[in-house]
């Protein structure tokens, strides 16, 4: 089985994050592998291991699109157990919105040959739009199974469970398919010492737009279908009234709600 996992290098949500520069894009200092992508990678590793792992010809390819630093997301994926890494990088990609990102990623996936599954996280923790998995599926003409909380593959079909607010669904799709997984699907492994050593011997292929046959005008700010006109930092919320309970705080809380006309 050949599985591609999309991994993104995102600003660490533990710290305050900033928009800067042309097009108000996220400042990528202090970036890490998106936490939500670890679940996608773990799901891919489990599928590959259940089929005899890399010895039986199963490939788990970690693919990241982004500037130089994005290679760190690929390295971490290799340490966790991905068999190969691919870093799609090109100056023209800067500022790509979801539509342009999905175009470049679709071309990169096609470039990798006959892929059985593309697995992604449920959202990136920076853009948070959740658009890319569905747009990638549409561009590749593949079924999408999104927000999967379980994933099984049997022969040429996959079965997954998907939880919505009012119902839970079981869905089936033929392979190849695009799957996004939630943080409920598994418990991602930590890279162990063996994995870290093994990762040093694994190769990372660098691809440019020319390699995947994408014209620079189709991506980046030029190829995006949305643009950010302005971004204003929201004034930080300030603390209001803080009281210590002296046995009547519940009543004071209701007084506050009544004064705010919230009852």
């Amino acid at each position, binding site marked *: 089985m050949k599985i591609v996992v999309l991994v993104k290098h995102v600003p660490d949500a533990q710290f305050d994050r900033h928009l800067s520069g042309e097009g108000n894009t996220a400042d990528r200092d202090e970036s890490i592998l998106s936490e939500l992508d670890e679940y996608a990678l773990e799901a891919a590793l489990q599928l590959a291991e259940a089929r005899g792992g890399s010895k039986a010809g199963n490939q788990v390819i970690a693919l990241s699109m982004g500037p130089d630093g994005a290679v760190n997301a690929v390295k971490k994926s290799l340490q966790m157990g991905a068999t190969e890494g691919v870093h799609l990088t090109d100056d023209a990609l800067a500022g790509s919105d979801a539509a342009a990102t999905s175009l470049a990623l679709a071309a990169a996936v096609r470039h990798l040959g006959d892929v059985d599954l593309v697995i992604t996280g449920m959202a990136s923790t920076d853009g948070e739009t959740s658009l*890319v998995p569905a747009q990638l599926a549409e561009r590749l003409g593949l079924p999408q199974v999104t927000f999967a909380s379980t994933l099984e593959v049997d022969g040429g079909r996959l079965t997954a469970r998907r939880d919505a607010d009012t119902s839970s669904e079981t869905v089936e799709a033929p392979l190849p398919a695009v799957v996004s997984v939630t943080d409920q699907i598994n418990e991602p492994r930590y890279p162990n010492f063996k994995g870290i050593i093994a990762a040093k011997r694994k190769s990372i292929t660098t691809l440019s737009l020319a390699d995947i046959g994408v014209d620079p005008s189709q991506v980046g700010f030029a190829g995006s279908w949305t643009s950010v006109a302005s971004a204003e930092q929201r004034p930080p919320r300030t603390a209001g009234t803080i009281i210590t309970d002296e046995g009547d705080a519940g009543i004071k809380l209701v007084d506050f709600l009544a004064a705010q006309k919230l009852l």
Partner: protein
Amino acid sequence: MAKVLVFIDNPGASLKKSSLELLTLARSLGECTVAVNGDLSDGVAAGFAEYGVGSVLRPSVQDLNDYLVAPKAAYVAAAAETSGAGIVLLDNSPEGKEIAARVGIRLNAGVITDVVAVDPDGTAHKSVLAGSYNTACKATTPVSVLTLKANNVTPEPAPAPTTPEIATVDVPNVAAAARITAREQKVASGRPDLTDARIVVAGGRGMDGDFGPVEELADALGAAVGASRAATDAGWISHDAQVGQTGKTVSPQLYISAGISGAIQQKAGMQTAKVIVAVNKDAESPVFEIADFGIIGDVFEVLPQATAEIKKRKG
């Protein structure tokens, strides 16, 4: 005048508040056509007339609910082409965003999610990076696809009702789509949906396994129940209730945070609430930095007392 298409999926017997918000926004932007999926009940048809909908489109096939996203997107894109819409509006649910995503590719249209307001020129406003920035963005394409977050538009009927025409749209064949083979309805809690709720009461680690006081306060206020990841991971409450970066972002009028310390990812889920109330026994909790009203106290004393007081005042 601009033409606006609103997609409403399986409205049931009457239109939800979030749908009325979409129709109200659509009317402010131009001439509104609705693409509906599922039964068109009398209550829903009356709602469309009351909210000034010009025409109603229905799909040529009945099995859109049997598949995941792709065929619905094909239908919405076809409906947008039929109606000549320059703006397509959908709700901001996970499925609404995914349909929007695929519609965008089908129509070569820019997609903007989590929208809270739209200017007459189509500029959309949203907040990003966990509510820390407000941005104005615009599709650079002839058609734009926007998903509207609930609770940001006040529903208002049209000055004069309309008599919408009803037409059918041919749904293009979608070769590859995931099929839904089983659907299990969750037990309805009787509480409002978390994402649409006007009031949310959320509990965290400090609830120590007992969500009773959170649920009772929520019921007294007619609120939805939310939870931090620590509480859902501990299995104290269903994962559906999770608010925050990996759960749901909510923007209610009132957010009551009980026993939640307010680490940055938790703040992410509540930052855009209009009023924040926090109850926590640890005076150092970061949540107090953003609370409009904070109580340093025991959730098991403060919440039941507040619940009893609300019941007393409401008679």
